[in-house]
C-alpha cells in the first residue's frame, strides 16, 4: 500500500523549519565550539581571533579553581544521584501502599520541582540564615545548638547546603517516576510470591527492583545529567563562594564568559559537553544491559 502516491504527500517542507532552526542554534554552535575552544578569542580582540592550539585546555587544567569546580561537580552529581534515587524510591514505595492522601502527598513533594532554582535558592537563603534561619532555630530548640552553623558562609558546609536544597527540590520528580513504574508492576506477581512465602525484603529485591529497572535507569540518567549540568542552584545560593568552595563547572563557565574570555570559555564548554556525553553513554549502556524483559 505504501506507494509513491501517498509518499509525495509528506513533503520535506514540513521538516525544514525545525531542521534549520535546530541546525542554527544547536548543531552549528556545537561544531563552532570545536574551533572556538582552540582560539585566543576574547571580547578585547573581538575582530581578530587567532588559533592558539591547546593553550586554553592547558590553562584550564592548571587552574586551581577549575580543579575545585571539577571535583565539586562530581561530588554534587554523585551525592544527589544516590540521595534522589534512594529517597525517591522510598517515598514512592510508601505512597504505593494506597494511603488515604497519596495524591495530596505526591503533589506536596512534587511541586517544588516545578519552581525555578533561583526562587528556591532565595527561600533557602532564609532557611540557612545564620542568626534566625529556621534550620538553626530548630537545632537550637531541640538542644542541638552545637550543630548550628553559618551554613553558606562556611566552606566546609556550603556545598552540602546546596546539595540538600537540590535534593529537596527534585526528589519529587524521581518519586513521581518511580511511583508510575511501581503502579505498572502486575499485582499477581506479589500474590504468587506471598503464596510461596517470600519475605517483604525478598519481594523488593526479586520482584520490584528488576521490574522497575527501566525507571531506575531513567532516574539515574536524569539525575546524572541534572547533577553535572547544575548551575541555577549554585548560582542562586552561593554563586561559587565562599572562596570558590562551591564552584562547579556550570558556574565556572559563566564566570569565564563574564570575564569576556570567549575562546577559553568555549574550551571549558567543549570539555563539559564531552564529559556529560561520555558519562551518560557509559551509564546508559551499562544499565541497559542490566534491565530484564517481562
Amino acid at each position: 500500500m505504501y506507494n509513491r502516491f501517498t509518499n509525495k504527500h509528506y513533503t520535506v517542507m514540513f521538516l525544514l523549519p525545525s531542521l534549520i532552526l535546530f541546525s542554527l542554534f544547536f548543531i552549528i554552535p556545537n561544531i563552532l565550539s570545536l574551533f572556538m575552544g582552540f582560539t585566543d578569542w576574547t571580547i578585547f580582540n573581538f575582530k581578530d581571533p587567532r588559533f592558539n592550539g591547546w593553550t586554553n585546555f592547558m590553562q584550564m587544567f592548571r587552574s586551581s579553581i577549575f580543579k575545585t569546580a571539577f571535583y565539586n561537580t562530581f561530588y554534587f552529581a554523585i551525592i544527589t544521584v544516590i540521595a534522589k534515587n534512594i529517597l525517591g524510591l522510598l517515598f514512592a514505595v510508601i505512597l504505593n501502599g494506597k494511603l488515604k492522601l497519596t495524591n495530596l502527598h505526591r503533589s506536596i513533594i512534587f511541586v517544588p520541582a516545578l519552581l525555578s532554582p533561583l526562587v528556591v535558592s532565595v527561600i533557602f537563603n532564609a532557611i540557612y540564615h545564620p542568626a534566625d534561619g529556621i534550620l538553626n532555630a530548630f537545632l537550637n530548640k531541640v538542644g542541638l545548638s552545637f550543630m548550628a552553623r553559618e551554613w553558606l558562609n562556611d566552606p566546609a558546609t556550603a556545598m552540602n547546603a546546596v546539595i540538600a536544597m537540590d535534593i529537596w527540590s527534585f526528589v519529587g520528580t524521581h518519586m513521581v517516576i518511580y511511583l508510575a513504574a511501581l503502579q505498572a508492576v502486575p499485582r499477581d506477581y506479589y500474590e504468587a510470591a506471598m503464596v510461596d512465602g517470600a519475605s517483604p525484603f525478598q519481594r523488593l529485591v526479586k520482584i520490584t527492583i528488576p521490574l522497575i529497572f527501566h525507571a531506575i535507569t531513567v532516574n539515574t540518567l536524569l539525575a546524572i545529567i541534572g547533577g553535572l549540568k547544575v548551575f541555577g542552584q549554585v548560582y542562586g545560593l552561593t554563586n561559587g563562594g565562599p572562596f570558590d568552595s562551591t564552584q562547579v563547572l556550570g558556574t565556572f563557565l559563566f564566570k569565564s564568559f563574564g570575564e569576556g574570555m570567549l575562546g577559553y570559555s568555549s574550551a571549558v564548554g567543549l570539555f563539559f559537553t564531552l564529559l556529560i556525553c561520555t558519562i551518560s553513554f557509559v551509564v546508559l549502556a551499562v544499565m541497559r544491559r542490566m534491565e530484564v524483559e517481562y
Partner: protein
Amino acid sequence: MLWKQRFNIGLREFTMLLIALLFIIPTWMVLANSFKTVAEANQYGLSFPANFQWDNYRRVFSEGHALRGLLNGIFLSTTSSVIVIFLASMGGFFISRSRGKLAKFAYFYFISGIILPGAIIPSYIILYILNLTNTYYGLILVFVTGSLPISVFLFTGSIKAISREMDEAAIVDGCGKLRLFLQVVFPLLKPVTTTLFILTFLGVWNDVSTQLFFAKSTQWTMPMTVYNFFGKYSKEYNVVFADIIISLVPILIVYVFAQKYIISGMTAGAVKG
C-alpha cells in the same frame, strides 16, 4: 484487618506526614512572613502574621516590577511553546511518515539534542551575528531550539501510533498536504500537544542560564526578577517573600489545571509498555 497491618498503614501515614512537613514548613514560612513587617519577617518566625501588611504586595509591583516579570514570562513562555509545538509536530509528521533516508537521519539529528548540552558561547556569537542579542526574538529562538529535541521525539512517537490508512483515506478524498496534517493528523495529537505545551511553558518560565547569558534584566521572566529583587532588598525579607508568592501563583494555577499532563510528561518513556 489484622492489627499488624493497621499498624503498618498507620506507620506509613505518619512517616509521610513528617516528610510532607519538610515541604510545607518552608512554604508556610514564605507565605506567613510575606504579610509581616520587616522587623518580624527578618526573624523568619512561623507564627501567624499579627497585622496583615498588604503594603508588601503593593511594593512588589511598584518597586519590584513584578508585573513586567509576569508579562515577560507569560509572553516568552507562551510564544516559545506555540512555536515549538508547530515546528516539532510538523517535523515529527515528516519523520514518522516519510520512508526516505532524510527522515531517518533527521530523527537521530534531533535526538542528539536530548543528551548533548547546547553550546552557549557559540550560540551567543550566532545571535550576535544575526543582531539578535538582548532581543525577545533571539531568546525565543534559543528557547524553541532547546525544547525541539524532546518535542520531536514525543511527536514522532505519537504520530507513528496513528494509522497510515487514515492518511490514505483522506488523500483519496482529495485532501491536500497541509490540510492532511492540520485537519486530520494534528487534532489526534491533543494529549502530547498539551503535555509539551506545559513542559515547554514551565521550562521557559523557570529558565536561568539562557536569560542570564542572552538577555537583559528588563526582559527576564518572573523567577529571574525575584532573584534580582532579592539582591537589592536582601534586608527586607517581607517584600522578597511577597515577590516569591506572586511568582508561585502562575505555577500553582498551571499545576492545578494540568497535573495529569505534567505527570505524564515527566514519566513519558520512564515506564515500560
